[in-house]
């Protein structure tokens, strides 16, 4: 997973950010994950320029139920491949959460986070401890690092890598 | 000396006697546009005229991608709806089930009438010749200019006379005849000309078959194509003519033709146009067994009731072996096919029965090919990339041949399938 300390700018989103807002159905036919980041958040009002302006290491911060809607894994790829190291949200929709874990993509459940950050705030995340710091205000909150099976899958870098590592051991 | 159809119609429209080669300016009786009414309306605004010359002469029929598959197509339709409202255009067929493919709608609703001069911003506008109209396709700018001025110039065309006699053998239809003619004279064989169909076989043909013949006039380069306005035509238009300006006009016996051809239907067999040109003719027997990925029955060329019935005759009680898309050319046809049980047969055979429109014909809507795929189609063009993918292959054929091929999963001779 590389360095477990992440530093970047926060992009703050609201509650119930659905998969059409993250990655619109118009681009579902794309199969190569590397092509997906250019469409990230294209339909999110006020953040249409996300894909053009985001910098490597920037972090997505969101409210409750992030990624609700479709099962499209594109909604994970478009952030992961776009250099977003982690998504922090009050809560995640079920399928989005799975898809992230299956790709070894860190998503932290961080209650209270949406009120602690504004767009552009410098943010530091320790993926090992789950500690999240707003470097501007100095406020700290705790994000749930994933547990058990999810953690193990993530430690392997994703579900398919996990399966390979466990081949024949089940 | 006698006059050709084109000379007589254009003479009547100008009020003077005219001959081939002369440039004339006429006021068209109807101007048809489909989804391209939107870009045309933009050009029209650029000209700077506020109102079209005569809103009752404009007919708009949406068909290219309906209902809209993307934001962009939806936006295009919206521009047209607003223009229709703004200009008070009464002859407007939206995506709803009173319409269908523009040329089919123009004919079945009574716009295509004997002796009228009609232009359309679509190359297959020549179809209306089946009803004795002088009709031809023009580009967007020219259409915008016509809306603005009510006038369009034509060079009075030379004419070609194609006489057809005899009767079709089993499994053979008008599409096979016209594919053969195109193969013989090539795709520029009638460049700039007015093609007249004559003979007993034309008189025996249904209006639908005549539409198939005239529809493909453009694929020989013709300006227009036309059949005699006989009783079949007059009976058909009796209660539905949308203009009273029509008049039965036909060529004089002693008219002068640039070219004359004769065909005996007894010599016509099921045929195809092979990729990638319409004149790449071959009898079905020579391409039999060519593997296909998709079959398509529909379009302004062969999406009429008689075409669906021909296909149903082949498919009845059987299952297609490849994906088969059937798109009736209009809702009126769909409706009739439904009442006659044709739709049931096609559904039971496993066909996709899509809503009327142009479908995949020009690569805009349902049924686009993937690279390397081959489609046999009743449409009118098999150009490289026509159905949305430049690495794909299109064979053009009659509804019976397409249906027979759908059953076998390879190009097949309908005579071997029809009992």
């Amino acid at each position, binding site marked *: 997973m590389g360095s477990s300390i992440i530093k970047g700018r926060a992009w703050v989103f609201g509650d119930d950010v659905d998969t059409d807002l993250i990655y619109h159905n118009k681009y579902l036919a794309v199969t190569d994950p590397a092509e997906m980041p250019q469409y990230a958040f294209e339909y999110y009002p006020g953040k249409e320029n996300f894909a053009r302006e985001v910098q490597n290491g920037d972090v997505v911060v969101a409210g409750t139920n992030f990624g609700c809607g479709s099962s499209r894994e594109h909604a994970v790829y478009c952030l992961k491949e776009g250099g977003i190291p982690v998504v922090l949200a009050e809560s995640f929709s079920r399928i989005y959460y799975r898809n992230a874990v299956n790709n070894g993509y860190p998503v932290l459940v961080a209650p209270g986070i949406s009120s602690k950050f504004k767009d552009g705030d410098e943010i530091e995340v320790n993926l090992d401890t789950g500690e999240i710091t707003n470097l501007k205000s100095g406020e700290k909150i705790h994000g749930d690092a994933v547990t058990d099976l999810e953690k193990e899958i993530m430690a392997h870098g994703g579900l398919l890598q996990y399966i390979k590592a466990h081949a024949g051991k089940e | 000396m006698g006059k050709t159809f084109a000379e007589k119609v254009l003479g009547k429209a100008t009020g003077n006697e005219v001959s081939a080669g002369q*440039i004339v300016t006429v006021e068209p009786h109807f101007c048809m546009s489909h*989804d*391209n009414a939107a*870009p045309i309306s933009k*050009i029209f605004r*650029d*000209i*700077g*005229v506020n109102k079209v010359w005569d809103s009752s002469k404009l007919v708009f029929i949406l068909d*290219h*991608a309906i209902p809209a598959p*993307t934001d*962009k*197509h939806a936006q*295009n339709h919206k521009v047209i709806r607003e223009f229709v409202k703004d200009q008070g255009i009464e002859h407007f067929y939206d995506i709803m089930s009173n319409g269908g493919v523009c040329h089919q709608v123009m004919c079945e609703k009574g716009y295509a009438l004997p002796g009228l001069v009609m232009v*359309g*911003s*679509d*190359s297959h*506008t020549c179809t209306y010749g089946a009803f004795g109209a002088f009709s031809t*396709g*023009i*580009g*967007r*700018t*020219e259409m*915008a*200019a016509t809306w*603005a*001025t009510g006038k369009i*110039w034509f060079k009075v065309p030379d004419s070609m006379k194609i006489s057809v006699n005899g009767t079709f053998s089993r499994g053979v239809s008008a599409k096979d005849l016209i594919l053969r003619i195109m193969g013989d004279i090539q*795709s*520029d064989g009638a*460049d*700039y000309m007015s093609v007249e169909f004559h003979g007993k076989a034309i008189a025996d043909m249904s209006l639908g078959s005549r539409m198939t013949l005239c529809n493909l006039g*453009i*694929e020989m*380069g*013709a*300006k227009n194509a036309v059949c005699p306005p006989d009783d079949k035509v007059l009976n058909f238009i009796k209660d539905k003519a949308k203009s009273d300006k029509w008049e039965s006009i036909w060529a004089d016996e002693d008219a002068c033709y640039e070219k004359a051809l004769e065909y005996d239907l007894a010599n016509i067999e099921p045929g195809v146009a092979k990729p990638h*040109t319409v*004149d790449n003719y071959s009898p079905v027997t020579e391409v039999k067994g060519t593997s296909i990925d998709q079959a398509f029955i529909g379009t302004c060329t062969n999406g009429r009731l008689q075409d669906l019935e021909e296909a149903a005759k082949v498919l009845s009680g059987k299952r297609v072996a490849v994906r088969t898309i059937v798109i009736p050319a209009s809702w009126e046809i769909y409706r009739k096919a439904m009442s006659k049980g044709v739709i049931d047969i096609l559904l039971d055979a496993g066909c996709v029965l899509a809503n009327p429109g142009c479908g995949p014909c*020009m*690569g*805009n809507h349902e049924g*686009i090919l993937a690279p390397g795929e081959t489609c046999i189609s009743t449409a009118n*063009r098999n*150009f*490289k*990339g*026509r159905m*949305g993918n*430049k690495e794909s292959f299109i064979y053009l054929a009659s509804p019976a041949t397409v249906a027979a091929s759908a059953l076998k999963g390879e190009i097949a001779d309908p005579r071997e399938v029809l009992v």
Partner: protein
Amino acid sequence: MKVKGKVWKYGDDVNTDVIFPGKYTYTVLDPAEMGKYALEDLDPEFARKAQPGDVIVAGKNWGCGSSREQAATCLTSLKVGAVVAKSFARIFYRNAINQGLPVIQSPAAVDSIEAGEQIEIDFENGLIRTDQGKEFAFAPIPEYVRGILQDGGLVEHIRKSLGLE
């Protein structure tokens, strides 16, 4: 009125789907953008490399098929100087003129001019000259047509005739 440029040579029956694919007809709306797709399925080099003034030299029946005007617009968008062909499909011929794109019929020129040659077209004198010194005369463009070409296309021509300038 003169045009000077490099020759791009193509064969017979080049149809409108090849010149401008149907799938773009409702998704590419800006004339300036249409040039990008010109001849995409026939010669992908063309749209990338054609220079203003370049001339297309082609066989018979250039532009057969659909009435789509984009087949002419995509060429004017690249500032193609003219199309010289053995013959033209009817609708393309009209569309080209209406867009202000000169179209010249000259079977003799087509037979002897090769791809890559530099040529000059002199419309007033009805002459095509190659850098090899070959010359081909062509029938002068009809007056009505010349009027449209001189005004830069049908829209401007009509505006002028309606006194809307």
